[in-house]
């Protein structure tokens, strides 16, 4: 547990001092919102039904950017070799990295969401706890498999280019259910219907979190 925390703290410190990926993630997330506003010009009148989809595309795109940086940064100056030498199970690295990625993504998501409230003229108060829960589970599912695939992608010839190509088909269940759940909260307010998408996302997170934890050591380059 201490080791997980140490890795998490290391990533957090680097990020706090450089703000490299955080700035990029945030800016990209906002740019996606703006782009979608132009792309959906023709459905301006019914734009509210598109907001959940737009939000999660923004989250997924900016999240991919962050995941890419996470291991790309470790490749510089042989940091990954150092990380591999810590006297702990390799799964610990996975958990620490996943934790860090989740926290970064959630912060970015919060700010992007505030921007979307302005851009799409939304008002939310009572919905906030539900949205927080959906964002949390969705993000955890995303990073659970994203961290593993990021470690895979960064050690290939294509480096960062490969991650979105292999990540998006895999995280489709999270994306579909997160959009569905967000849509329920923002557009229907039928909170009983949330149970199913939240269950599928939770199952996804547990299944892929466990697989990734167990298999993580195999994908790291020695």
């Amino acid at each position: 547990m201490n080791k997980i925390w140490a890795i998490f703290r290391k990533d957090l410190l680097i990020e706090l001092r450089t703000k490299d990926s955080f700035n990029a993630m945030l800016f990209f997330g906002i740019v996606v919102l703006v782009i979608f506003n132009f792309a959906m010009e023709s459905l301006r009148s019914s734009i509210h039904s598109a907001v959940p989809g737009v939000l999660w595309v923004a989250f997924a795109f900016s999240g991919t950017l962050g995941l890419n940086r996470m291991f790309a940064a470790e490749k510089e100056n042989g940091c990954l070799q150092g990380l591999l030498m810590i006297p702990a199970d390799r799964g610990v690295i996975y958990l620490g990295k996943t934790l860090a990625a989740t926290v970064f993504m959630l912060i970015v998501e919060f700010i992007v969401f505030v921007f979307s409230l302005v851009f799409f003229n939304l008002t939310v108060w009572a919905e906030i706890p539900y949205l927080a829960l959906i964002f949390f589970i969705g993000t955890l599912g995303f990073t659970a498999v994203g961290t593993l695939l990021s470690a895979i992608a960064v050690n290939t010839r294509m480096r960062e280019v490969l991650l979105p190509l292999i990540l998006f088909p895999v995280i489709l269940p999270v994306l579909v259910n997160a959009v569905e759940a967000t849509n329920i909260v923002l557009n229907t307010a039928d909170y009983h219907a949330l149970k199913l998408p939240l269950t599928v996302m939770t199952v996804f997170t547990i299944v892929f979190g466990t697989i990734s934890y167990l298999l993580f050591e195999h994908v790291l380059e020695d």
Partner: protein
Amino acid sequence: MSESSRSRMDAVLGVVLLLGMMLALYMAFIEAPREQTMGDLQRIFYFHVPAGITGITAFAINFVASLMFVIRKNRWWDNLALSAAEIGVMFLVMVLVTGPIWAKPAWFVWWTWSPRLTLSLVLCLLYVSYLLIRKYIEDPERKAMVSAVFGIIAFMDAPLVWFSIRWWRDIHPSLTSESGGLAPEMRPAFFTCMAVFQVLMIYLLRRRFYLESLSNELELIEREAGTAR
């Protein structure tokens, strides 16, 4: 298995396959009755459905082989996994091509996001990703291990995709629907095609596996020559 018995087996399988394919064509186009409402259009079903089931069988083989590779770390399993993935993608592409050809006259659209169509497309994408990963890793040991991990993830993902989308409106015909499913007169043609597709998969799997083991051997020889130089 010795080299000669392997090639003899392939030859026998090839002849069986050729005869089977001719029989399947006869059954599907001549023996099977003309469908009442769709007419001859329905005959594409004899190729569409078996290709789909065969593709999924190939992905299941990829999953088992990937799992075995992670446990045993034997290249034999990696060769099998790669062969199965490539062949599965090929069958799935067949499904995704024959589907719209049938759907345009039957549904008046090429494509609709109904659960089965979406799942087939996502499966195809997942295994194209699998092949992409393989393409971009040089070191054979690492390639085998990483793609085995991804093979396991891809196959585990399929049921979750299905549970996420099965609520979407489905207009796809089903073999097990309450409306009766497949007419008894059509069953011989269907099961013939089904069997022939499975034999085709096994044949292709054997050939592709053999090709891959040859390329492994070549790689080994090249490496030895490189170190000797």
